[in-house]
């Protein structure tokens, strides 16, 4: 064999390389930074906000953004910047509640259906189909009007209609690994029942459920804002983005910022979770690796 080291002459050719963004500047990291900002602002709202979000000051009503009120004031003279900061809190709490309620239910239904097959599967999946074909916002509105408006009831109402997509995905994935060699091997070693489901199937189904949750969060934020807009969410005077847009919409032609500021907050939050979810999916699915 020829000694290659002394051949490293200047005429060494290299494959052309395409221009690429720096490695750290990817969807996941941008989404993560935005979500962290959101969480930070919500947590530190009392420290960051220059005014009490609920104190009304009629003299200062509907002021345009200036050095004192950065985002202006609403029709009760409340500082919009402070209200938007505090408004992040109910939104994030509601979103977390929905996730905590839906992911476990969806996973349990899906894994049991996929693992047991037969009648168990048919019954569970038909229930899933039925819930899935309900119009989610209408059902949520109906539930809230029965249960009464509020944070917890809003979360319950949204959770009721958003678990089926998790169940379907978990079932499909369970089906695809049900006959895998490693599960057969585990059965041959005497691992059965709940032990097999929790210890062996769940770890493989969980990552994509988390991705889906992150992707769903954007939609849930919009739905939560929708409930607030229709007056079915958290009740005033507590700051909530949906109801803030709703009250701002009355003056949208003259004082557009009153509706636009919480509107942008909703956009930002929804985008943050969408980016995070997209990035997570790219990270976890090797097929997207390119």
């Amino acid at each position, binding site marked *: 064999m020829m000694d290659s080291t002394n051949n490293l002459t200047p005429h060494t050719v290299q494959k052309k390389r395409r221009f690429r963004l720096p490695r750290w500047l990817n969807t996941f990291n941008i989404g993560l930074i935005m979500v962290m900002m959101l969480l930070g602002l919500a947590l530190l709202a009392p420290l960051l906000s220059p005014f009490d979000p609920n104190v009304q000051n009629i003299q200062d009503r509907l002021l345009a953004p200036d050095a004192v009120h950065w985002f202006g004031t609403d029709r009760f003279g409340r500082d919009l910047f402070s209200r938007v900061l505090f408004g992040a809190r109910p939104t994030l709490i509601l979103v977390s509640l929905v996730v905590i309620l839906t992911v476990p239910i969806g996973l349990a239904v899906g894994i049991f259906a996929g693992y047991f097959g037969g009648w168990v599967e048919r019954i569970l999946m038909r229930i899933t189909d039925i819930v899935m074909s309900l119009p989610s916002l209408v059902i949520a509105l109906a539930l809230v009007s029965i249960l009464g408006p509020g944070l917890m009831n809003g979360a319950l109402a949204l959770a009721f209609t958003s678990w089926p997509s998790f169940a379907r995905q978990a079932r499909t994935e369970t089906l695809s690994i049900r006959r*895998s*060699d*490693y599960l*057969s*091997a*585990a*059965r*041959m*070693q*005497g*691992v059965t029942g709940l*032990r097999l489901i929790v*210890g*062996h199937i769940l*770890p*493989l189904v969980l990552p994509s459920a988390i991705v889906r949750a992150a992707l769903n969060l954007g939609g849930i934020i919009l739905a939560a804002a929708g409930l607030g807009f229709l007056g079915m969410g958290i009740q005033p005077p507590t700051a909530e983005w949906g109801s803030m847009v709703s009250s701002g919409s009355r003056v949208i032609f003259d004082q557009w910022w009153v509706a636009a500021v919480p509107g942008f907050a909703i956009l930002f939050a929804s985008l943050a979770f969408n980016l995070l979810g997209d990035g997570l999916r790219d990270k976890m699915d090797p097929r997207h690796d390119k």
Partner: protein
Amino acid sequence: MNLIELNDVSISHVQGSERNTVVHDVNLTVKAGECFGLVGPSGCGKSTLLWVLAGLNPHWSGSINMLDQPLSAGKVFTGDLRRRVQMVFQDPYASLHPKHRLRRALSEPLKLLGYQDIDDRLSEGFKQVGLAENMIDRYPHQLSGGQRQRVAIIRALLLEPKLLLLDEPTSALDMSVQAEILNLLNDLKAKRDLTMVMVSHDPDVVDYMCDHAVTMKAGRIDQEKFYN
């Protein structure tokens, strides 16, 4: 002594409400301590037969005696029988749980059986198959194909099986690694009084390893061959 006796065994694949018989009227016996080979082209039913012997496919008819007890069709293996029949799968990349470290994968069944000296048994197993013990905290994707197949062999042997089923144990491996694994299997068979049933599509491997082999064709036994 016969470890396995099959009389008129037929096996079907069940898909929904349809039954499709893929193995027809197989009669064969496997003696304790022998290496028995099942050879044939893909689709001949050899793997299907092996999965019945492994207790992973209950859709069969006829009569089967294994380890001195009659099996009943439609039932899964339990108790002592379950542990005494173990298998090494074809694809070492698919037979180890991707999210479990080796320690967990190997110790879980021992815990279920209530053993106390699990660490000793694991390190003994690693020694037997010639793997470094410090690999025990790795994930399967951090191992090469040959190393994974060695782990799969440890996993099977830890339960002290009487019957070791081998489903094309080397067909996914490099030729040079195949030699290492076949040597290992021969070693273990000599040391541990194991009976082996090996499925392969490579007649050379069966010629080299087995004491007794049948060739299958379209779901039936075509030829039987004894080596000595």
